[in-house]
């Protein structure tokens, strides 16, 4: 007998139970070997196999196992078209938040702007302050302000500093490192400036989304911004990562004695805690050429280790190409619900 499954790119395939079992074992072992963490137990692998082989198109958690659901950039997901993984219904950002709160039952939301990086918010900070005020007058749920640290915007040709990629290719390692250190200082300053201004008008929290996308210096800038914001404001800080491993583009940047390059989710969260992060969002990347049984087992293994190591709530990132879901603009509900159940009931996350 064969069961429906998908590849990491969303393509529908069929697999035997034995193949699915082997994929789950290989996926968890891959995570265990890379992260130097325990693989899933035999019982947990069997549970995942049951989820994958469930004959229903969609699955859900058992009553009592429900978890918090929040959305990053959901503000514009109604308004945005398929190019933004949205549905193209023209509504304002405020309406987008209220639709998520009142129609979709979202537990917390995020206000973000269309460019979605922190740096471009600086020149439009007054527009964002106005929107935060309006949102807070109508929304009941916690609304975070969210954007990407995006250190890439501080490098030539988008920013004032040398582009590390160009410096590396020219053999100028020192230049590449110096550019990253300077960019981190500026990104830290910009994130703090923006969030302090939003705090002044009643913003309740910040979501640093896709942290470390530009490597360890990107992570460092965000940790420094977190530390300062926790010291000077009452903002709640959620930190969502960009990848399962902090790519070492600098390689030797440390935060409070911990080298940031190469950290996996269960190590990333401990550094985030030191900076004062309140909610942590681990990311595990989907391999688009492997099946989803492999991807899901791998993602759950990393996230379970992160949950066990953490002293703060874990809201795993799930969606287009991360967290055991296929890389597709609107991933199919069969795999999204399977991954969600696995994260809730095996990894024991606090939220998605």
């Amino acid at each position: 007998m064969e069961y429906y499954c998908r590849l990491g790119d969303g393509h529908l395939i069929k697999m035997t139970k034995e193949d699915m079992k082997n994929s789950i074992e290989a996926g968890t072992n891959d995570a265990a070997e890379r992260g130097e963490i325990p693989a899933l137990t035999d019982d947990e692998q069997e549970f995942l196999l049951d989820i994958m082989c469930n004959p229903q198109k969609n699955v859900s958690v058992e009553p009592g196992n429900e978890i918090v659901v929040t959305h990053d950039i959901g503000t514009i997901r109604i308004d945005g078209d398929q190019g933004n993984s949205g549905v193209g219904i023209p509504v304002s950002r405020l309406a987008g938040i209220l639709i998520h709160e009142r129609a979709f039952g979202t537990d917390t939301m995020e206000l973000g702007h269309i460019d979605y990086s922190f740096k471009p918010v600086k020149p439009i900070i007054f527009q964002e302050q106005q929107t935060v005020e309006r949102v807070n007058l109508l929304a009941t749920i916690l609304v975070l302000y969210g954007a990407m640290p995006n250190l890439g915007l501080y490098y030539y040709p988008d920013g004032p500093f040398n582009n590390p990629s160009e410096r590396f290719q020219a053999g100028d390692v020192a230049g590449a490192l110096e550019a990253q250190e300077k960019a981190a200082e500026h990104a830290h300053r910009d994130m703090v400036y923006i969030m302090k201004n939003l705090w002044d008008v009643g913003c309740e929290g910040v979501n640093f989304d896709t942290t470390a996308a530009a490597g360890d210096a990107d992570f460092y800038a965000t940790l420094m911004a977190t530390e300062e914001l926790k010291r000077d404001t009452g903002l709640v800080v959620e930190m969502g990562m960009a990848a399962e491993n902090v790519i070492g583009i600098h390689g030797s940047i440390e935060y409070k004695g911990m080298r940031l390059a190469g950290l996996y989710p269960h190590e990333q969260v401990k550094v985030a805690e030191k900076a004062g992060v309140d909610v942590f969002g681990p990311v595990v990347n989907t391999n688009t050429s492997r099946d989803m049984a492999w991807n899901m087992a791998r993602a759950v293994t990393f996230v379970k280790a992160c949950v066990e190591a953490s002293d703060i709530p874990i809201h795993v990132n799930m969606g287009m190409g991360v967290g055991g879901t296929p890389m597709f603009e609107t991933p199919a509900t069969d795999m999204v619900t399977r991954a969600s159940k696995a994260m809730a009931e095996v990894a024991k996350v606090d939220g998605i």
Partner: protein
Amino acid sequence: MGKEELLKAVEDALIKLDEGALMKACDDALAGGVEPLEIIEKALTNAMTTIGDLFEKGKMFLPQIMVAADIMKKATAKLEEKIPADQKPEKLGTYVIGTVEGDVHDIGKGVVATLLKVNGFDVYDVGRDTPLQNFVDKAKEVNADIVGASALMTTTMVGQKELIELLKKEGLTCKTMIGGAAPTARWAEKIGADAYAENATEAVEVAKKLVGAE
């Protein structure tokens, strides 16, 4: 020491980024009768593959890879002195790489370009948000073996399709590779690209296969 042990010593020294040990290991291998070309093609190449794997797993970082490339270059130069002119190893190939127009993402493409370079390709990085014609012009200018196009987003990956069409229209016969966050192997197949790579380390291996180096 036997030949395998001599080669292993060279490999280990490069992985440990120990320039002194690498030079000594090369001298020992030569003195032990190992052909210089074999030292390059087996020990040094294997070491760079291992270094790529370590990078992909987050156990080694970009600056260290640059150090590895630098000391490998010195070791290769030393070994090439012992190789007759007609047997000297050639560059793996010429690779033109860039991120397609409309997409400003630079980081991933830059990592791929760096790894290709340290693994022996002549790399021409045409940048990010690059007009498609620039890829074509550069590929003609340097007689590229491979043109690689990166796109992070679903909104910009269509540029990869247009680039492959443009390369064909202009009569270029070079191989094509795509990568990025949203593109997949299925997308590569659909648009007629010769290859797709999931990450930077895989990109090096795939590129080597495309030029017949593996």
